[in-house]
């Protein structure tokens, strides 16, 4: 049996038709599970029409609580009725391309079936152990192997700060989007400035002042951040302006212009700066980015949401090898040569997965190499 269980209509248009059904129940077979409208919990992800007339949820039909994807109609169907169940567009979109992935649940079930049991290297193992190692593996793979980059398009408010995304683990890239839609990479401030974690208020002797609970009093505003926000970016980047043409003006910040010692390439860019403010839990941007559109690309650990818990099929075998090694290496009395064998197995398969997922295509490399004869100007 093939792995695809949906019909073309179910996949492409998110529709399933039921003809000649009698009784009150139909069961849908989409890859996507139907979701009912539950107040303050969820919105329905599908609609139902009967003979071309849109039905109303709860009045005309309801989704079974006990049986998955079973729709129960208030009025019994007769054989001439035509029922059309249609997924809404976000549900259809999230199903597109889903064949690229395997769910973590399937990985665990496959592992239990294929690697655990009598006469196998792992004769018995708690399923929760396998789930733990599978999820840990997915987390580790998410950081450097999987294509699990999330991105958000955001507008920088006047406060120059945006909160860190809920499922954020680390950033990949932050870009400003210019008027042409081209992304221009924004760089971290690195050593230019910082965001202090604590802002203790001091007395005249420099000793932090405590409140009635014995805790340090903290200032609301950081002086460092205020100064940074008010700084003129051209002072750092070396951006040349018409009124700065006096080469004999030796103000310290003009030394960055390259008149005397050349530009510092690290700071010679005009796209702006960002930093992570751990105290406020925000991404903070330089003042020239106010009201600009930025795209924040970051990695998550693949476990934040249920729908995230999916593994690219190209890394499936690496995940099995990871679980195998993790279980064998933590199990008492496993011979060390077995542990080492699976350690190497894991490393080799993870390397394969990284190569596969790095998405290197010969034609694309050839295209890049076409620039080999172009002169590079320094």
């Amino acid at each position, binding site marked *: 049996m093939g792995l695809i269980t949906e019909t073309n209509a179910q996949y492409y248009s998110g529709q399933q038709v039921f003809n000649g059904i009698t009784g009150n129940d139909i069961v849908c077979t989409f890859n996507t599970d139907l979701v009912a409208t539950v107040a303050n919990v969820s919105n329905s992800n599908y609609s139902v029409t009967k003979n071309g007339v849109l039905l109303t949820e709860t009045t005309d039909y309801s989704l079974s*609580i*006990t049986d*998955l994807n079973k729709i129960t109609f208030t009025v019994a169907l007769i054989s001439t009725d035509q029922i059309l169940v249609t997924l809404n567009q976000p549900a259809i979109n999230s199903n597109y391309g889903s064949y690229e992935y395997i769910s973590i*649940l399937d990985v665990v079930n496959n592992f239990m079936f294929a690697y655990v049991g009598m*006469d196998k290297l792992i004769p018995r193992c708690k*399923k*929760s152990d396998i789930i733990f190692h599978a*999820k840990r593996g997915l987390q580790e793979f998410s950081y450097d192997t999987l294509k699990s980059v999330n991105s958000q398009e955001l507008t920088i408010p006047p406060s120059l700060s945006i909160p860190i995304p809920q499922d954020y683990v680390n950033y990949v890239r932050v870009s400003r989007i210019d008027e042409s839609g081209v992304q221009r990479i924004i760089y971290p401030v690195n050593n230019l400035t910082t965001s202090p974690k604590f802002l203790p208020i001091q007395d005249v002797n420099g000793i932090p002042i405590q409140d009635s609970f014995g805790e340090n009093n903290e200032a609301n505003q950081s002086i460092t951040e205020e100064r940074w926000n008010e700084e003129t970016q051209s002072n750092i980047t070396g951006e040349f302006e018409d009124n700065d043409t006096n080469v004999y003006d030796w103000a310290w910040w003009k030394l960055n212009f390259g008149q005397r010692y050349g530009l510092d390439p690290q700071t010679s860019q005009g796209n702006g700066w960002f930093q992570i403010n751990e105290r406020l839990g925000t991404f903070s941007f330089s003042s020239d980015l106010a009201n600009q559109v930025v795209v924040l690309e970051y990695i998550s650990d693949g*476990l934040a949401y249920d729908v995230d818990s999916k593994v690219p099929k190209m890394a499936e075998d690496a995940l099995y090898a990871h679980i195998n090694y993790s279980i064998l290496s933590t199990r008492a009395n496993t011979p060390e040569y077995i542990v080492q064998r699976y350690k190497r197995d894991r490393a080799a398969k993870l390397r394969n997965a990284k190569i596969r997922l790095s998405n290197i295509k010969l034609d694309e490399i050839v295209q890049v190499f076409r620039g080999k004869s172009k002169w590079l100007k320094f």
Partner: protein
Amino acid sequence: MAINVNTVYTTVLSILNKEQRGYLTPFEFNQLATQVQLEIFEKFFEDYNQYIRMPKTDVEFASRMDHIRDEFQIFEENKNASSVSGNVYDPPTSPAIHRFGSAFFTRAKGNPEIHIVTRRDYHEQILSPLTQPTINNPIGIYHKDKLTVYPEVASPAVTDVKFNYIRKPADVVWAYGVDSTTGAFIWSGTAGAPTPFIPSTGSVDFELDDSQQTEVIIGILKYAGVIIRDPQIVQSATQLSAANEVNTKR
């Protein structure tokens, strides 16, 4: 296939009556037969455990493990819970559980197995965010003949949980009618047997596989020898049984 109760009874009587060693009444036979059936039935599981740990073969008809599974598969049941309160499910009552095997959660796709844990393990497991029970990975605590399943689901129903278990074999009964002329006991399964039958519920065959017929007869003879106080029968039956045991475990 089950063992015919009349075949066993008549065979036992034939052996016992040889040289007028004694007679076994239907009542005594029924009790002994039930006892022997239970003994052999309980031994299945110990034997199965031993076979699992022995070298195995996949050759058809030669696998002891497959063979013994065939013998007790008839007692395996897969039934819904009998009642539910919150997330506590009572096991089936008809037939009742003799050995609990596994339980499956039908509220999730593919009916995943409910992983049975101790209460201590449960508390450890729920402390880890990665191993929280979900409907796709349900866990349960089997305690005082009740199964508490996590996570708790809305609108619980007895169909949520299916129990896979071994039931106890039914009591063996050799029922008979009394011939009004000769006073002889006629087996209820005989064509034209006189009625009413004693007991009125009729005969119940052994549920064991017919490959166990010899074991059953030897077992009954062993007990019958005790009843009729014939050490020779007890000794012979015990020797035969031991020889059989040695052969199958070699």
